[in-house]
């Protein structure tokens, strides 16, 4: 019989205007992997934040090992052995990995000074123990999101957590990294007696890793069931409240002009190392070109170069056949490029700003949103804001709500809504459905396809091969800053792509030759 470790009893959380949790009863057993799923805004993060002491519940009690626990702050949570890795990271970008890991209980030298060497050693040992690949001396800002997440997890482990809450940890990971993470999680549970709560939108992950799964909908806990008794269909229905049908995307025949072309472009990463090593490709109107690659092989930098956010060191960049000499963000926007960035919070949004301010970005100097040169025309701005909120089903109290108060998936919808509303001829889209629920993913895919059918040229970068294969007309693979292959979508398998993405295409040729 499973031993109860945590019991949440009758938890409710009222935010101004939103009942984020409503009478939630949830039991977590010792040593289990417990998945929590639900649509965007269902209240998953809120519930976990309550358990972690970040929010005080409006009502309800928490029991740990059968005893009533008072968790008023993360401090209390850590004392109870609870650690959390947040949906959006909370690392200090200018510090090194080791400093971030030990921050809070640093090894000391002469009582006052941090023992940096010791910190490095600790981090190295921790990483080794759990099988993570990280360089303790590297600065956080130089790391990919995937690696940053490992640092977050290490940090929690360093604090000695027995119960790990992971809020959408796989949203930012590549499939390989996800597998690695799952191995770590399994090891933590089986060898080290940890308990793991994991939030995710990906049902196959729930089925693959969890022992039990709880489903939330509109603040309520709909039910908890053993994973063996669950399948994708049952879970989806529980989440959405009705059966969800997936339609095939409608792909029209469009043959357009070449609108974007790059020849032999090169770029450096934040550390000054070459990450794009002579990349060439072209993009036509009415086409989706998927870029498949393992994270960290230059695709993030490619997106930044194309949108003017990163210096183009060498090579030529053409839009509509014209060579672009001054590649900067405002220029690229004026030339008709919209950009959905891979990381919504560092680049795609201002979380302190309101919904309308976030949706306005890029149009603040354009008529009719500004009149008499500088006067913001609030009437027009609000009209557009409210239309977008409705059209993209952004769950918010009103247009004045600060974006930081939205749920993660709804933040993503804000970015998508803004960038898609410009009707740009070129869309550069990175990780469009990161942290987005099934229904909204379907919606976003449909929007991308609609844009394509209307004649937009779309570059799609995604860590999800399934997403790339579902949407793209053509796929290029990128490995260590170079394009290793180009394929028509229909004519390639996942396995082949996988080999090209990891630079092992020769193996394929070899075996074909034989």
């Amino acid at each position, binding site marked *: 019989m499973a031993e109860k470790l945590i019991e949440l009893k009758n938890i409710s959380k009222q935010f101004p205007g939103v009942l984020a949790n409503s009478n939630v009863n949830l039991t977590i057993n010792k040593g289990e992997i417990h998945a929590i799923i639900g649509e965007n805004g269902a209240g998953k993060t809120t519930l976990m934040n309550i358990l972690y002491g970040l929010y005080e519940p409006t009502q309800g009690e928490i029991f740990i090992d059968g005893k009533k626990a008072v968790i008023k702050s993360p401090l209390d949570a850590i004392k109870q052995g609870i650690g959390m890795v947040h949906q959006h990271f909370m690392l200090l970008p200018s510090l090194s990995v080791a400093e971030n890991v030990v921050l809070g209980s640093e090894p000391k030298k002469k009582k006052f000074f941090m023992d940096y060497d010791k910190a490095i050693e600790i981090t190295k040992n921790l990483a080794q123990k759990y099988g993570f690949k990280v360089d303790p001396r590297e600065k956080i800002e130089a790391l990919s999101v995937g690696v940053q997440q490992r640092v977050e997890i290490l940090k929690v482990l360093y604090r*000695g957590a027995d119960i790990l809450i992971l809020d959408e940890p796989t949203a930012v990971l590549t499939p390989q990294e996800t597998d690695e993470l799952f191995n770590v999680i399994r090891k933590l549970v089986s060898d080290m007696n940890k308990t793991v709560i994991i939030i995710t939108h990906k049902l196959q992950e729930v089925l693959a890793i969890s022992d039990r799964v709880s489903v939330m909908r509109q603040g309520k806990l709909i039910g908890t069931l053993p994973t063996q008794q669950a399948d994708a269909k049952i879970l989806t229905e529980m989440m959405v409240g009705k059966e969800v049908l997936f339609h095939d995307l409608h792909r029209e025949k469009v043959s357009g002009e070449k609108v974007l072309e790059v020849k032999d472009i090169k770029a450096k990463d934040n550390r000054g190392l070459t990450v794009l090593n002579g990349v060439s490709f072209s993009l036509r109107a009415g086409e989706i070109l998927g870029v498949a690659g393992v994270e960290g092989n230059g695709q993030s930098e490619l997106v930044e170069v194309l949108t003017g*956010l990163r210096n183009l060191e060498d090579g030529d960049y053409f839009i509509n056949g014209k060579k672009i000499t001054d590649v900067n963000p*405002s220029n690229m926007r004026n030339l008709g490029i919209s950009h959905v960035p891979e990381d919504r919070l560092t680049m795609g949004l201002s979380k302190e700003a309101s919904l309308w301010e976030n949706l306005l970005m890029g149009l603040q100097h354009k008529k009719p949103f500004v009149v008499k040169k500088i006067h913001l025309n609030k009437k027009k701005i609000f009209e557009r804001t409210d239309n977008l909120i409705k059209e993209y089903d952004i769950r918010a109290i009103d247009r004045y709500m600060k974006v930081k108060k939205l749920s993660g998936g709804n933040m993503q919808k804000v970015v998508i809504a803004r960038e898609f509303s410009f009707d740009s001829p070129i869309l550069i889209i990175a990780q469009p459905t990161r942290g987005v629920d099934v229904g909204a993913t379907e919606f976003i895919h449909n929007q991308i396809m609609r844009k394509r059918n209307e004649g937009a040229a779309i570059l799609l970068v995604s860590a999800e091969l399934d997403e790339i294969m579902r949407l793209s007309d053509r796929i290029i693979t990128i490995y260590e800053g170079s394009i290793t292959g180009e394929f028509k979508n229909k004519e390639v398998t996942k396995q082949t792509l996988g080999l090209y993405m990891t630079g092992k295409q020769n193996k394929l040729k070899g075996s074909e030759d034989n």
Partner: protein
Amino acid sequence: MREAMKKINLSYIISLALSIFVALIIGALIMLINGKSPFIGYSALFSGAFGSKYNLATTFAKTVPLVLTGLGTAISFRSGIFNIGGEGQLYLGAFAAAYIGITFTSLPFFIGIPLAIIFGALVGGLYAFLPGILKVKYKIDEVITTIMLNTVAVLFTSFLVNYPFATTQGKMNGTEIIAQSYHLRRLVKLSTLNTSIFFMSFIAIVIYYLMEKTSIGYDFKMVGQNRMFARYGGINDKKQMLIAMVISGALCGMAGVFEVLGVHYRFLQSISPGYAWDGMLASLMAKNNPVGVVLMAIFLGALKTGSVSMENATSIPSELVMVIQAIIVLFIAGEAGFKDKFVLLNIKRKSKKAGETNA
């Protein structure tokens, strides 16, 4: 109207009111310990600030430099560039105005006064441009450079008024009196309240409009909140920061101009008792909200004016008000504009506590 209501950050207003209240309570305790009645003390303070036409006028006279420097701080802080050099810009602006007033003595008022204001603003703006350009071009921390430039400006003007521009009429550590046509009219007998309050009101409305209602204000705010997002959206973040810095310096410069044209009629070696610092406090308390800055400037102006009367009437030293101000600063330091700068410190401190309990 609905929009206005939505924008008001009620929880912050409550916490600010609470910190002011607690600070006043602590002030009362200090009075008690010293055997004074806080009741009498505070009523002397209140009537000293608002009790008569003269007192009211004095309070408002004090708010002129506070509002200008406060708005100067607000516009720079909101844009993510931290102008702590208001005091220096004020000194240079003041000297610039005095220079015009003693040099072009035959200009009629309707040319001379605007000239002095514009020149003072220009000098203040340029003096802020320097640390601004160092920041955006060479990433040199503007907090440090602006603080240092304060000292430079104060010492430089002090040199000017003691040597090349020293008055020949007695030992004043000031310049000559500016020509009569530059004097701004006094509004209430005996008090220094003068027509600069109208200029100030006009400027405040312009700045409010700029910050809250225009695309420029939007760009400022976005750059201040998330520079990456601003760049991504096509805003030239460096240019915006520089513009904000120059406007900030110009506002502080104008604060100095009005001290010369309206209050002292000359530049004095110590023309400001730290107006820019109080202005900054007003801005911090108001979280860089222009309307809030004006309200907080009035509040601080009243505290300053009232404390003098309180000292006269009850012999409670006027420095008590400094203590009260300091306590307010302490309370809001974690909340208001400086947050970002201190966030690292804070996290370190907090997680340190967590670590200790864990160990």
